[in-house]
């Protein structure tokens, strides 16, 4: 057993932290929350130059051939930096879908471009039912000649408004079970009939309502097999959830670091507030939550990385981290007093991200139910 990171992984972490501290200061994060696009092409380009977009893709598709654990390290740092922009949707949500389900031609066409930073992608999965189960996929794709026509509404689609391509999970058949009859398409973001509206969210991320009105997609843009898409989505959700947990862990660690630093520096009653037992207990609770979150996440990521069955561990991680991240940021706010209640402060960035991440890919209750099923209940 080895619960440590390799030297390369530690180096990746240091490089990422230094780079993001310099290139993605919190001032930029706050600016991007107000910005319509939500990212800057300069930072995007620099990240691509570092090889981050293709980090976990095989070398034959322009990637660096590193592992999912390596990516988790990077995502943790991105969570710490509150990195805005389309990295998660492009690389994790869409890159992995193409890698998993795409045919050779699709992989050769798209993955190197993603790795180069030439493409921005969005995954259109959730609908107004806002769930992550197969029954919630209602948007229709019907064949017409050499094409399919997609019609319906997707909701909470991150970065659809800037996406070159939208990966859309559709229903092509009402099968015997909801899993049957789901098909995935790679849709050109500029296709006629797509309209996107930005939603106003607490974290200032760029989630959209996307309406597909008879959007024409060539059959060759189908990702994976007809009617067999749910298996792909399931696998993807496992990876995405583990990836999100890594990002959340990074955020929780940052909120903890900030709170400890403040507890040491802020003086009231002639002594640092960190000398009050109430504050010390808060810090102790926070670090317990953060450490617990880390290793349950690393375990899940390690299983994913090694292709082992990870359903149970991923759900355990999300069930725990969803609530731990929230608890940590709440205590962090409490430690900061009024100064943390200001828009300009960094604490709210983490609090809002924690609240936004909670329901994403299923909240704690959702994942506890998965765990219950895994227990044979």
């Amino acid at each position: 057993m080895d619960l440590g990171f390799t030297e390369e992984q530690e180096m990746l972490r240091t490089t990422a932290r230094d780079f993001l501290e310099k290139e993605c200061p919190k001032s930029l994060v706050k600016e991007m929350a107000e910005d319509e696009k939500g990212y800057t092409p300069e930072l995007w380009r620099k990240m691509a130059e570092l090889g981050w977009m293709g980090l976990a893709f095989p070398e034959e598709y322009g990637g660096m051939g590193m592992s999912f654990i390596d990516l988790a390290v990077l995502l943790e740092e991105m969570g710490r930096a509150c990195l805005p922009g389309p990295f998660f949707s492009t690389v994790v949500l869409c890159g992995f879908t193409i890698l998993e389900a795409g045919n050779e031609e699709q992989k050769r066409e798209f993955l190197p471009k993603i790795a180069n930073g030439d493409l921005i992608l969005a995954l259109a999965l959730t609908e107004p039912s806002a769930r992550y189960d197969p029954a919630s996929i209602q948007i229709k794709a019907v064949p017409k000649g050499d094409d399919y026509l997609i019609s319906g509404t997707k909701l909470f689609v991150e970065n659809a408004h800037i996406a070159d391509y939208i990966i859309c999970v559709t229903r092509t058949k009402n099968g015997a079970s909801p899993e049957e009859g789901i098909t995935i398409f790679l849709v050109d973001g500029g296709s006629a009939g797509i309209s996107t509206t930005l939603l106003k969210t607490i974290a200032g991320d760029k989630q959209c309502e996307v309406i597909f009105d008879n959007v024409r997609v060539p059959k060759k843009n189908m990702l994976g097999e007809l009617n067999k898409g749910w298996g792909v989505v399931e696998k993807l959700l496992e990876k995405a959830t583990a990836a999100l947990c890594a990002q959340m862990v990074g955020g929780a660690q940052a909120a903890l670091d900030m709170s400890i630093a403040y507890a040491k520096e802020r003086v009231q009653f002639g002594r640092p507030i960190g000398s009050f037992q109430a504050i010390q207990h808060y810090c102790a609770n926070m670090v317990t939550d953060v450490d617990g979150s880390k290793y349950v996440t690393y375990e899940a990521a390690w299983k994913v990385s090694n292709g082992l069955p990870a359903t149970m561990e991923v759900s355990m991680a999300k069930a725990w981290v969803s609530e731990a991240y929230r608890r940590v940021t709440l205590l962090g706010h409490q430690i900061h007093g009024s100064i943390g209640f200001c828009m300009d402060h960094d604490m709210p960035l983490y609090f809002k991200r924690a609240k936004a991440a909670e329901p994403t890919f299923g909240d704690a209750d959702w994942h506890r139910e998965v765990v219950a099923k895994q227990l044979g209940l």
Partner: protein
Amino acid sequence: MDFRFAEEEERFREEVRAFLKKEVTEEFLMGLEDRGELDFSREFTKKLAEKGWLAMAWPKEYGGGGATMMEQLIFNEEIGYFQAPTGAHRQGINLIGPTIIAHGTEEQKRRHLRGITAGEVVWCQGFSEPNAGSDLASLQCRAVEEGDDYLITGQKVWTTNAHRADWCHLLARTDPEAPKHRGISYFLVDMKSPGITVRPLINMVAAHDFNEVFLDNVRVPKENMVGDKNQGWYVSQVTLAGERSQIGLPSSCKRTLEGLVEYVKETKRNGEPLAHNPIVRRKLAEMAVEIEVNRMIAYRVAWMQHKGLIPMVAAPASKLFGSELLQRLTGIGMEIMGLYGQLELGSKWAPLRGAMARMHMYSLGIAIAMGTNEIMRNILAIRGLGLPRA
């Protein structure tokens, strides 16, 4: 024991409720929202004054209604339930008015109380400073005598409504040599005085509620000092005479819970109303239980005050419980809404106009304002339970 209110009290509740139902409409609240003044309405405060309810529990000789603590409790409960704006009178009615009544000169009473009971003069509280939060007595803002005046110089922070207020009650140091609690005086300062600069601080809900206030040689006549020189700490401690139940928190939570109950009944997920989901049911039922517990704690505070007892444990317990309950309830509300919980006002998909996320964020401030929950626990333990100081 009798958990019922008297008949006249019930009649009074009905009257207040009918009035609030008419005045605090969805439309009215949306109007405040649009102006970015969620908790502030001079017009509404004025209407309460016209009804004779604003200062209902003040003594009659000072323009109050001479009502009992239980009547005040009922009124506050209904105001909380309707989530009505109280920002334009809270400071005046609960803090500065009672302070002037207890410690003010006849001239101060004549000059200031009527404006408060009439709902015409808005007050803000200039206590906190950058380095004096929980440790308020370490404040540095200086007041120096010059002829018939004091010249006040320093900085206040987190001053709610300073940008809307007519007057400020503030603490300043008049004897820097004395031990920290004994060199502070209590002043009434006209916000139009030269030398005052108010700078907005935007909170994490993106609202402009509180401010920084800079004072640069602000001239305040000596007659505006409340109580004796260097007695400001003592004076500021006795502002606690008003109704202290904090009933507004559980009653506002009750309204929010009712909104959530409606929401889960109406909202279907994959064809099934959320209300059928056992987890949702359990969470909402748990909240109903907590709200009832909180209501009883708050009732007990008011009842003790009604009986002339001092609620040394119950009063801080109520504030603690209420602010943390609000945090749990609104957090659970967001959870139940799932992905929708993160939507803010301005999204057509936002349930309850984004109120749940907004209230959840505000709940963080409530656990800090008016003495943090940690300080509340200290006070409860030391003063309420007689535990030794650390």
